[in-house]
C-alpha cells in the first residue's frame, strides 16, 4: 500500500522535527520557515515508519498520513 503525506501549513511552526524524523519526506522552506513535502503525492511503504514518526514528532500536530 502506498500513502500520502500532508502538512497543514497554518499549523506548521517550522520546528523541523519532521525533517529530523523523516529526511526523505520533508524539507523546510528557508523563506517561509514551513515544511515542504518531498517526492510528490504518493510515497512507498518503505517510508511508512519515518512518516509515522514524523506525525508523532510534530509538536504542532500539523502532519497527516493517509493510506492510498
Amino acid at each position: 500500500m502506498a500513502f500520502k503525506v500532508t502538512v497543514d501549513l497554518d499549523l506548521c511552526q517550522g520546528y523541523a522535527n519532521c525533517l529530523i524524523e523523516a529526511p526523505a519526506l520533508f524539507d523546510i522552506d528557508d523563506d517561509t520557515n514551513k515544511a515542504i513535502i518531498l517526492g510528490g503525492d504518493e510515497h512507498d511503504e518503505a517510508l511508512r515508519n519515518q512518516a509515522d514518526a514524523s506525525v508523532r514528532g510534530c509538536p504542532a500536530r500539523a502532519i497527516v498520513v493517509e493510506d492510498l
Partner: protein
Amino acid sequence: MDRIVVVGGSLAGVNAAEALREHGFNGELTLVSAEESLPYDRPPLSKQMLLEDMAPEKLLLKPTDWYEQNGVTVALANPARRLDSATQRVVLADDSELEYDGLVLATGSSVRELSVAHGDPRLHVLHSMEDAVRLRAEFAPGKHLVLVGGGFIGLEVAAAARAQGLDVTVIARGPAPLSRVFVGDVGQWYQGLHERNGVDVRCGSALEAIEWGVDGAVVTLKNGNVIKADIVVAGVGSTPAVEWLANSGIELSNGVACTPDLKTSLPNVVAAGDIVNWRNPIFGEQMRVEHWTNAVDQGRHAASTLLGNRDPFASVPYFWTDQFDTKMRFVGRTTGADQTNIETMTDDKLVATFGRDGVLIGAVCIGSPRQLAKYKVAIQNRTPWDEAVEASLTAAR
C-alpha cells in the same frame, strides 16, 4: 500483564499509554493526573498562548473521546500521593488505591520556587495552562513586566510581553542569558536580540527582595538597584516532581534513577520524560532531559520496556525555542563542552557547534534548519570534532 497504571497525565504519560495500546497491551489501563484538564501541550504556554487569544482546548494532546476509544481510564485532579511497591499499589489523594502489575512514572517537572518571594501568590510562574491564562490576563500595553531568570521559558515570556507592548526587564544571574546551557556567544546573541527589541537585560544581577504594594511590586537587586514592576514573573528552572515517591524505596538521584532501558530500581516500574535520569549510550553520560521530543520518545520507549523490550534508550536530545521572529533549534548536549565553533553569526542567523573530548556533541541553529538535521546525524555517529569543523569549512567554501 493485566493492569498498567501511568502516573502523570502529560506528554510522556500519554505517549506511554498510546504506545502500550499500539504494542497490543489490552488489559486495564489507567492514567492518573494531578491536573483538572485532560492532558495538554506545554510549549505553546510561553508562545502562542501569550501572543494570541488561543483557546485552551486547542492545546489538548488528544481529542476528548480518544481516552474512551483507547480504553484509557483517566483520573483527573487526583494526584498520586504514595507508592507501595511491596503490594504494587498507588495511593491517590482521595485515598483510593490502584493495584498494578506494570507502572509508568511520568510526573515530570515542578516549578522551582523563588525563595525571596516567600510563596507570594502575586508572583507569576509558568508551568500549567492556568498559569498561562492568569499571566496573559495581566498583559496590557505600557505595563512593566520584570522577569526573574534568564532561561528559555523566561526569555520566551519576555519576548511575548514585549511584542504586546509591555515594558520588559530581564534579571539574569549569570554573565549572559541562558548561561546554564550555553557558555559565551549564544547567550550574548540572545541578549542582543532582546536588546534590539527593546528589552532591558540585566546580567550578573542577584535578587535581594520583592515587596508588593497597592500599585505593583518593588524589586530590589543585591547591587542596590530598585525596579518598579506591575507584573513579576519567575522563571528560575524546575525540579523533578518526585516528592511523592520519597518513601517508596525507589532509587532517586536528580530525578528517578533509571537503567539505560528506562527501568527503575523497583520491579515492574519504568519511568519516562522530565523525571528520568539515565545513562544515554550515545554520549556515555548520565542525563536528565527536559525537552518535548524526549518526553514523546521516552514515553514510547518505557512502554515497550514494560512489555519486555530490552533496548537501551539512545537519543540525541532535541529542543527548540521561539523568540521574537527567530526560531532556535538545538540538538545534542553542551554539558562539559570544551570546544565551540561559531560557523555563522549575523543578526538573524547563528550556527554553532560544541565538542567534548574530541567528539561533536551539540549544535545550535538559528535559521538554517537543514544544518540541524545534518548535525543530528553527525552527533549520533560520534563524529570526531576536527572532522566536523573541517566539513563545515568545506561546506562554507
